[in-house]
């Protein structure tokens, strides 16, 4: 029976064939991220298997397992706990993964990942076609690969492909983007060889063609997919042009590759490719070009394309043959099922925070800002199970921490009422979403999700209702549990002396529309709150200056996003005084001692303080002897950010 969403997104959910096999729909789960859930020597762990079970159940027609390195030396190993496939000893768990995927009706593809320029994490060096130094200092110094090593590498890839098929996978995939080995041969930026593997595009593509040929010969009855950049975003640095990228696609197609997955960018490229600042659909033109160039080769694509409706339209328009999706399914593994049931308003959208990638390059297991259960599927404590004792729960604060806790607790059978003094769900996220330079709709989608699912679960939300001890006395013994998710507040006690009659506005309040700055604005605090507000005001042509005590801006911003804020500050010409101590606030403005020890006055008509912030946890103490259980949650424990708020709320909701 056709589900309502399947009727709406007919093309997306239509079966097709690929490499002579029936595929149940036009969705390919992409191997976007190595998880770092495994052992240091490359074995797959129960944690990984539990996670893979979730991936297998996403409903995708083709599922690509994360990249495994093919060489025993580890030159191909980029990530701290990357899985290995250079020996049969690793195969039992690969067999389990292939079986899981196939038991769920998917085609199983194993990616063979030699990380090249980003590899050698345990060795202290990486191998490349030429010695071109790194631009990101956490990678290793390059050594030039010899021709013997090239032959050996190709042999190891072919053997890895044979192992993949032996383990039960239907086909394999190799990848030429991000600066991985294949990409470094293809690109002029890293390939400056003068032998038959370097120079012309024909020569630079030779390694790729030999690799494709070797794998096709070793596994002739099984499809081979290659991921190739439609744009490297390295051309300013001397990398390939888009035209050259497409010529390489033609070379791969001429070698008989079974599918091309079009990708964008290198890890170190001076431009964004998949972050929140790139609008969804921005890169679709690359896939369209690939499809026009190679009408008889199946094309998969999904870079910065998180929306099933857009994917369905692209499929109808012939822009690609398979929607390749990964991060949206990290954020919500049930997205495809919800789309099939026409419940897109209940999907937790990937907001492009790149928390996943940031953690990878710090040797941490990947997590997802939006999906607090990601990576914890093996832990019963993270499961939403029926509560042994059903309770009446009051959640104070309808921000992400409070709402996450409320929804989770409601799913376990508790009766939940959320109270918030403001007129809408969202807490501080409302302010952030309203002022975000990157993609406001992504942030607003988080609020819409909470509103929609709260209604569906019967969570009562009482807005415009402040909670205090007086109210609690009126509600005594109504609630068994109080969750204090009241966020953080400005610590006014830590502000410098303020002349009588001079007002200092709280940044979160201004961001949420409760306070209107005018004239010259000085913002105290150059962290994420202060920066977001400053950038927003600057785009409205306001005169804004940031004062920050630390010597750098963006101290509390996620590592993957710091560069974005500092770039915006530069582009918008926002003056900032860093390493500065504010010593007095008066009608003149803000008096500071700057980083050089020089006293200055920053004239101001509006002064806004974004820091320091302290947890707003007064109610924890106030209710301690009034309610059976009182739990602080989110920023009310300690101010952090959206990801921590959602994690805290979820874990508490699972535990109550």
């Amino acid at each position, binding site marked *: 029976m056709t589900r309502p969403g399947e009727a709406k997104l007919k093309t997306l959910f239509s079966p097709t064939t690929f490499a002579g096999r029936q595929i149940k729909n036009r969705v390919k789960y992409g191997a976007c991220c190595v998880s770092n859930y495994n052992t240091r020597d490359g074995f797959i762990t129960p944690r990984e298997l539990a996670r893979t079970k979730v991936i297998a159940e996403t409903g995708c027609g083709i599922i690509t397992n994360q990249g495994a390195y093919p060489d025993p030396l580890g030159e191909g190993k980029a990530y701290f706990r990357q899985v290995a496939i250079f020996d049969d000893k690793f195969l039992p768990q690969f067999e389990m993964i292939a079986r899981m995927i196939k038991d769920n009706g998917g085609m199983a593809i194993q990616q063979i990942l030699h990380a090249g320029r980003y590899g050698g994490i345990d060795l202290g060096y990486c191998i490349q076609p030429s010695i*071109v130094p790194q*631009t990101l*200092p*956490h990678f290793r110094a390059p050594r030039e690969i010899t021709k013997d090593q090239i032959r050996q590498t190709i042999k190891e890839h072919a053997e890895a492909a044979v192992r993949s098929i032996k383990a039960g996978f239907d086909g394999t995939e190799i990848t030429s983007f991000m600066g991985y080995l294949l990409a470094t041969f293809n690109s002029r930026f890293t390939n400056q060889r003068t032998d038959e593997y370097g120079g012309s595009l024909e020569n630079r593509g030779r390694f790729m063609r030999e690799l494709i040929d070797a794998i096709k010969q070793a596994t002739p009855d099984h499809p081979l997919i290659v991921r190739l950049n439609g744009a490297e975003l390295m051309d300013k640095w001397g990398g390939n042009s888009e035209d050259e990228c497409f010529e390489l696609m033609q070379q791969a197609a001429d070698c008989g590759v079974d599918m091309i997955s079009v990708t964008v960018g290198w890890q170190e490229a001076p431009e964004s490719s998949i972050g929140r600042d790139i609008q969804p659909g921005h890169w679709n033109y690359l896939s369209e070009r690939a499809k026009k160039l190679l009408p008889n080769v199946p094309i998969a694509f999904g870079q910065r394309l998180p929306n099933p409706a857009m994917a369905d339209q692209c499929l109808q328009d012939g822009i690609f043959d398979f929607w390749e999706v990964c991060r949206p399914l990290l954020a919500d593994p049930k997205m495809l099922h919800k789309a099939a049931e026409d419940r897109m308003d209940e999907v937790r959208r990937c907001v492009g925070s790149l928390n996943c990638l940031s953690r990878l390059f710090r040797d941490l297991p990947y997590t997802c800002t939006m999906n607090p259960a990601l990576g914890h599927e093996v832990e019963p404590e993270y499961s939403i199970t029926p509560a042994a004792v059903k309770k009446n729960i009051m959640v104070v604060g309808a921000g992400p921490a409070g709402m996450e806790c409320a929804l989770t607790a409601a799913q376990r059978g508790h009766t939940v009422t959320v109270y918030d003094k403001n007129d809408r769900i969202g807490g501080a996220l409302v302010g952030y979403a309203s002022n975000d330079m990157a993609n406001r709709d992504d942030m607003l989608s988080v609020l819409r999700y909470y509103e929609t699912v709260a209604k569906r679960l019967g969570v009562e939300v009482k807005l415009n209702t402040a909670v205090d001890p007086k109210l609690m006395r009126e509600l005594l013994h109504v609630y068994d549990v109080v969750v204090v998710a009241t966020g953080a507040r400005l610590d006014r006690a830590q502000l410098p002396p303020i002349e009588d009659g001079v007002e200092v506005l709280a940044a979160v309040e201004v961001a949420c529309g409760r306070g209107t700055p005018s004239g010259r604005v000085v913002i105290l605090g150059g962290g994420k709150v202060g920066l977001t507000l400053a950038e927003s005001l600057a785009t409205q042509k306001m005169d804004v200056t940031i004062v920050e005590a630390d010597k750098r801006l963006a101290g509390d911003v996620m590592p993957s996003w710091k560069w974005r804020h500092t770039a915006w500050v530069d582009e918008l010409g926002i003056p900032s005084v860093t390493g500065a101590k504010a010593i007095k606030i008066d009608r003149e403005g803000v008096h500071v001692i700057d980083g050089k020890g020089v006293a200055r006055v920053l004239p101001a008509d509006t002064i806004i303080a974004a820091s320091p912030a302290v947890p707003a946890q007064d109610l924890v103490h106030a209710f301690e002897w009034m309610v059976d259980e009182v739990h602080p949650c989110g920023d009310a424990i300690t101010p952090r950010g959206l990801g921590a708020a959602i994690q805290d709320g979820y874990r508490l909701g699972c535990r109550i």
Partner: protein
Amino acid sequence: MTALPSPSRWQGLLDRHSTLFGELDDGCRIGIARRADVNRPGAAMVVWEAVGGRLVAGDRPFPGYRDAGVDVLLVGDDEAMTEISGELEGDALPVLKRLVRRGNLVCYVLKRQCELLDAGYEDVLQSMGVAFAGACR
């Protein structure tokens, strides 16, 4: 094609930002070369070397990436050289940062992150717009 500015022209920038560059350990070296020259044997490279808490500009032949003998190497295209040349008598540091951001200047690191941190490079690279901490985009 714009020539690589001479060491004496760079010295003004280094002296103007002596507090920033003064954090580098003695012996630290930053090289600057033109993209057009990196594959030309014997082409010129300007080197800023930390001596006695101060960066001093000099020049030497560019021996290739492998033997460059510097910790950080800035390689600029012609547009970069033109812009830098026009600003060196003013404050060229924001120009360097803008050029790194735009991709006209590639900042190669020839030492590991831990070594650069220990040698005092964090603020220097940050001021030039380099994603020092391994930021992912």
